Structure formats: structure tokens, C-alpha cells
């Protein structure tokens, strides 16, 4: 691994990197993508509404009515967004208490987390919460930058088994045990 996440700054200079890229960045291309997605969702909502029946006799508002209104509103908003983007409108990312927008987006970490979530979805019905929960915690913590994966797994296992019992016994929510049926 090279100097990902910030190269060595000379003699303790306290300034985040990447601030210099703010000079006329041109239109926010990604926003066109957002507009396209909105338009697709809106169009689909309208199409879906068109396929609905007239509804019951006592329904004063036809089931399709809201779909038409909301769907066309979405399409309209998508167009407005595209126009605004072309005129130089830029999205301002949400600057939370814990987010430093001056640093670029860390796609590697994001991709790792997405992978962990997809694996969770794929395995949860088969392996059950106690196993998948532990893997989820350990995987997420490791991807987020904690290298001690043995410790992460231990914490994850404790958390997931404890939460399983907590839900099953304490709250009366019977989470299926999965492969650990009979063990837990």
C-alpha cells in the first residue's frame, strides 16, 4: 500500500489536501445521472399507474391518481434539475459533524462496505443472524480501517450472539437461528 489517504506533509503543516481543486470545476456531471434516475422512476410510476384498474365504486380517489401526479412531478423535477445543472448548479455534499468534504471520496472503503452488505443479504437466511452478524461487524470494521481482524471477529461474535439472545429471550422476537439451530 502506498500513500493512500494523504501523503506525508512537510513539517507538521496543518492543512487538508485536495483544496486546490475548487477552481472552476465545470458542470456537476453526476447530477445529470441523478436527473436521469429521477426521470426513470417518475416515468415508471406513471406507466405503473396507467396499468391500474378504475378501483372500487366507493373510491373517490382512483388508485392511479396519486401515481400520475407524483410520477409526473418527478419527471418535471428531473428536467428542472438537468436545466439547473447545465446552468452551473452544483451539489453541495452534506457537511456533517464527522465529514470533511475537503478530502475526496474514498471509493475503496465504500466498495468494501457494499461488498459486506451484499454478502450479508446473500448469507443471512442460510447462516442465520448469529453467524452473519459477527461476519458483518468484523467485515465492516476491517474495511473501515481496523486491521485487527481477529479482535474484530471476537467482538462481532459476542455482539451477534448477545443480540440474538437479547431479541429471542429478552424481547420475545424469535430470530431464526440458521445453521446454528440446536447450538444456540
Amino acid at each position, binding site marked *: 500500500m502506498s500513500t493512500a489517504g494523504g501523503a*506525508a506533509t512537510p513539517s507538521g503543516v496543518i492543512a487538508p489536501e485536495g483544496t486546490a481543486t475548487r477552481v472552476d470545476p465545470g458542470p456537476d456531471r453526476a447530477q445529470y445521472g441523478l436527473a436521469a434516475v429521477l426521470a426513470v422512476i417518475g416515468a415508471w410510476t406513471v406507466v405503473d399507474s396507467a396499468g391500474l384498474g378504475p378501483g372500487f365504486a366507493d373510491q373517490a380517489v382512483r388508485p392511479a391518481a396519486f401515481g400520475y401526479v407524483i410520477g409526473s412531478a418527478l419527471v418535471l423535477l428531473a428536467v428542472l434539475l438537468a436545466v439547473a445543472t447545465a446552468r452551473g448548479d452544483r451539489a453541495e455534499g452534506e457537511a456533517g459533524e464527522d465529514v470533511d468534504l475537503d478530502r475526496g471520496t474514498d471509493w475503496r472503503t465504500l466498495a468494501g462496505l457494499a461488498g459486506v452488505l451484499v454478502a450479508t443479504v446473500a448469507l443471512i437466511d442460510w447462516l442465520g443472524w448469529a453467524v452473519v452478524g459477527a461476519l458483518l461487524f468484523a467485515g465492516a470494521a476491517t474495511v473501515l480501517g481496523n486491521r485487527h481482524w481477529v479482535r474484530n471477529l471476537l467482538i462481532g461474535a459476542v455482539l451477534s450472539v448477545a443480540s440474538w439472545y437479547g431479541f429471542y429471550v429478552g424481547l420475545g422476537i424469535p430470530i431464526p437461528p440458521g445453521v446454528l439451530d440446536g447450538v444456540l
Partner: protein
Amino acid sequence: MTVVVGWTADARGRAALVQGAHVARLRGQELVVVNATTGTAVVDDRFAGASALEEVRRLLASLGVDAEVRQPVVRDVTEALLEVADEVRATVLVIGLRHRSPVGKLIMGSTAQRILLDARCPVLAVKAEEPAR
């Protein structure tokens, strides 16, 4: 030809820093102080703030050593330190050690151990003065 110190803003970091400064002065070499952090916690006690930084500068000045202090935010503190050592072609890398119980070693892993194994230059390991038990 440079002496590199892995510095943390605590007792063992200070021990390493003082030792490193002495070595650098004896050899007449430059000193690079590396205070790296992963930046994953809002507050990192081992990462020096303005006041700790000022204190270190004063300490180094009083020892008569001209030093460069680096504070990179990195993915992995150990690797960052080794990279700096490579970059400035360190003649010696000074690190601080702390006492670890056997269980602690097993669970936590050891930064010092990885440095000892992976460094391409001599490593000088210093222990912090421990309070008498």
C-alpha cells in the same frame, strides 16, 4: 542520511524522541520526527495537538537538534513510518515500546514487532521510563 523517530504524544513516544535526538546530534545527522495517525477517531491522544507540537519543538531546540516534524494521516501507521524511513534513507529508526501482557499481544498484535521485522534499516527500540511498581 537521517535519523527517523516514530513519535506518539505519550511517555514512550517522548522516550523515543529524546533518544533519537541524541543519536542524531552524536552522528551529526538530520532528524525526521513522524507522528502519524489513521485519523479514524475524532480524538487521537497519540496524535500531537498544537500545544504538544510546540513543546516538542522547544525540547528539540534545547537539545540543539534541527528536526522536521511530519504528521501524516494514513491508512496504516506502521507502513507510513517504514515508508518515511525508506524515503529519507534512514540510518536508524527509533521507536518506543510499551509493556504488553501475553494476552494483549495475542489480541492486539504489535506495531513494534512489525517494524522490527519489516524495516530495512537498523531499529533502535526504547522503553518509556516506567513508574516503580
